[in-house]
């Protein structure tokens, strides 16, 4: 240990507010939510204490016990015991406990004490505890535990002051390890009961409001109705609330493009690059920012409120039948935003087999990158008309595409369940947290983060690919005396025509074939690529660029559009998802399996859709 830096590890049961405390102390912006297992890796930050000492803080995944059951609990155990590769044991362990739910949190503290390192207990959520009339005799608790105890409110500014003062002082002496640790863990539970009886008064075990809410949210009939209504509301909102803003962005981009290029000669390469490449391509994707933000708004609110584990409870039986676990609900819901955080969130599934199945089916959840493709095609081909008087047909189609993704995920999970040899029992064992009012600040921060990630993608990989595609679509130029659009003679045009042999049976024209290739890097690029390809194919009419929807509505058959929609329900995953699968499973085999089965499903679904739609029309 160096004289000036103190290494502090934050540990505790899942969902006790370690990350909120970490953010409060370091000014960090780590993700917090109201369910167990949000932090799935160790995270590090530093801050300077009032004394000028630098404190290095390590935020660890929640653990109920050091008898590690899940990969993230193992990380916590290894860091605390100094067995984590390349890292010395921390100088001080801050054990964070939810003051409204001390029973298991205190038992874990007893286990931490046995490590024989300096420990401080932070009683978090003291504000909620007080509101619920829970009285904690802190001096008595401190005396009985033999470790310093401080009160914190991690979500309030200045709520960690007592903790900072304590860790900035002298290291607490190492707590005397209990002599009777050999007597087993049952004994620790008995000790906790004694501690609670002596120092804590609880008017009731759980909040009355939570019990009342759960009577509705977990009711066999109303619970499922509420869940279905909530999901449906989200999809309707994504489609109808975003509309005016999207129109504004579309108009703005077109006007900006026209204004920027007004001084350039219309037949110059730069004019074409700016208009056909950048504004047609990037603009076509930028337009979807409002929809993505609305989707995330709902997901963030649901995450913070504590409702998600309830939904997992309601759906466990169904998911279990399909070869998954209720716990998979949260990673799968995150995958609606993006499969990458979804796959990372599977680490909270402590069972390796359930976790692997979840990783393999997570990319079937309709991620927000598919939304641009869906919206473009739906707006162009599905009439906007009322269904049953209240619903918009476009919203209904979008909803059914999401349902198709979910159903196929259940089906694939079921097939995996039938194929695997290990049929042993695997547990659910999931804690349901207290309900919490979402914090405006956390939701706003989450939205801001998603917006910047999206814009960075648009400005980075998307812009680069769009420009690259423009080059491929422009060069080599047409031979003298050529008829037809220049793109036909370019590299991209030739590639598209070559791929067309493979994709003709499922109704894709050569323009779509070109767009599929950059779509592998990120799915929404397919839309910007289509924008560029069509802008380039248009003979002398760059006005078309901003109205991709109108162009494809004129040029594609309904069967082709439906076939492309079906393709994107399964769409071979983007490279980033494959990279994350490789990292999380540590195996190329699963990367190959998931890419392969999705390609096969996509082709099959599109083939069926196209051929059936052609027969019917």
């Amino acid at each position: 240990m160096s004289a000036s830096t103190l290494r502090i590890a934050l540990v505790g049961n899942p969902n006790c507010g370690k990350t909120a405390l970490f953010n409060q102390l370091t000014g960090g912006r780590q993700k917090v939510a109201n369910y167990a297992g949000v932090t799935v890796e160790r995270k590090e930050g530093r801050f300077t204490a009032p004394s000028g000492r630098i404190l290095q803080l390590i935020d660890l995944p929640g653990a109920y016990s050091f008898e590690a059951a899940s990969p993230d609990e193992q990380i916590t155990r290894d860091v605390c015991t100094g067995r984590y590769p390349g890292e010395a044991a921390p100088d001080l362990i801050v054990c964070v406990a939810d003051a409204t739910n001390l029973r298991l949190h205190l038992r874990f503290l007893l286990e931490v004490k046995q490590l024989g390192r300096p420990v401080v207990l932070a009683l978090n959520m003291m504000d909620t505890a007080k509101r619920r009339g829970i009285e904690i005799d802190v001096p008595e608790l401190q005396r009985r535990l033999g470790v310093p105890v401080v009160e914190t409110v991690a979500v309030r500014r200045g709520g960690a002051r007592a903790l900072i003062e304590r860790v900035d002082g002298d290291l607490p002496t190492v707590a005397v390890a209990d002599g009777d640790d050999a007597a087993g863990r049952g004994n620790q539970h008995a000790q906790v009961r004694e501690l609670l009886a002596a120092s804590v008064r609880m008017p009731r075990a759980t909040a009355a409001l939570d019990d009342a809410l759960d009577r509705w949210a977990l009711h066999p009939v109303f619970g499922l109705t509420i869940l279905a209504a909530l999901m449906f509301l989200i999809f309707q909102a994504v489609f109808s609330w975003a509309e005016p803003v999207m129109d504004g962005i579309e108009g703005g981009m077109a006007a900006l493009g026209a204004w920027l290029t007004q001084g350039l000669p219309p037949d110059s390469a730069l004019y074409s690059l700016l208009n056909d490449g950048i504004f047609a391509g990037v603009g076509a994707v930028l337009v979807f920012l409002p929809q993505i933000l609305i989707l995330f708004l709902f997901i963030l609110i649901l995450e913070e409120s504590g409702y998600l584990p309830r939904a997992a409870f309601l759906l466990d039986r169904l998911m279990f039948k399909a070869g998954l676990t209720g716990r998979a609900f949260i990673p799968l819901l995150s995958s609606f935003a993006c499969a990458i955080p979804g796959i990372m969130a599977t680490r909270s599934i402590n069972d390796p087999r359930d976790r692997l199945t979840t990783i393999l089916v997570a990319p079937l959840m309709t991620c927000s990158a598919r939304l641009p493709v869906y919206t473009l095609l739906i707006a162009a081909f599905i009439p906007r008309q009322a269904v049953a008087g209240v619903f918009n047909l476009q919203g209904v189609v979008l909803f059914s595409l999401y349902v198709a993704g979910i159903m196929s995920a259940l089906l694939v999970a079921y097939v995996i369940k039938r194929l695997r040899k290990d049929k042993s029992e695997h547990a659910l064992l999931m804690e349901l947290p207290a309900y919490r009012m979402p914090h405006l600040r956390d939701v706003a921060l989450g939205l801001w983060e998603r917006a910047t990630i999206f814009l960075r993608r648009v400005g980075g990989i998307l812009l680069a690919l769009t420009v690259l595609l423009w080059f491929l679509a422009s060069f080599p130029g047409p031979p003298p005396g050529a008829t037809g659009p220049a793109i036909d003679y370019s590299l991209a045009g030739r590639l598209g025509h070559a791929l067309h042999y493979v994709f003709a049976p499922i109704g894709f024209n050569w323009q779509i074939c070109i767009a599929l290739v950059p779509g592998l890097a990120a799915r929404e690029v397919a839309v910007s690529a289509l924008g560029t390809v069509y802008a380039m194919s248009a003979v002398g009419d760059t006005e078309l660029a901003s109205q991709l929807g109108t162009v494809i509505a004129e040029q594609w058959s309904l069967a082709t559009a439906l076939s492309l929609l079906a393709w994107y329900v399964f769409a071979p995953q983007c490279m980033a998802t494959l990279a994350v699968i490789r990292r999380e499973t540590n195996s190329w085999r699963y990367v190959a399996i998931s890419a392969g089965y999705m390609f096969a499903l996509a082709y099959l679904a599109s083939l069926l859709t196209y051929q059936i739609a052609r027969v019917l029309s």
Partner: protein
Amino acid sequence: MRLSELPRGAPATVDCVEDSHTADPIAQRLRDLGFVDGEPVCVTAVGPLGADPLLVQIGSTRFALRRSEAARVNVRQGAG
């Protein structure tokens, strides 16, 4: 009786958790989560399909357990 047979809303007390086979990790986990002799428990809700899983209140904590998991926990009816 077993926790999985306990009627909804009936107060009970944990006796012990039985391993369903040797070195049963699920039984060990249940003990870690506080299913030990003397803890008051109550089934407060059941899942919509096949009344599975169970929502079990133990102390100030709520756990979702599948029936097969709850069947490992022996309880006696009545508080304390």
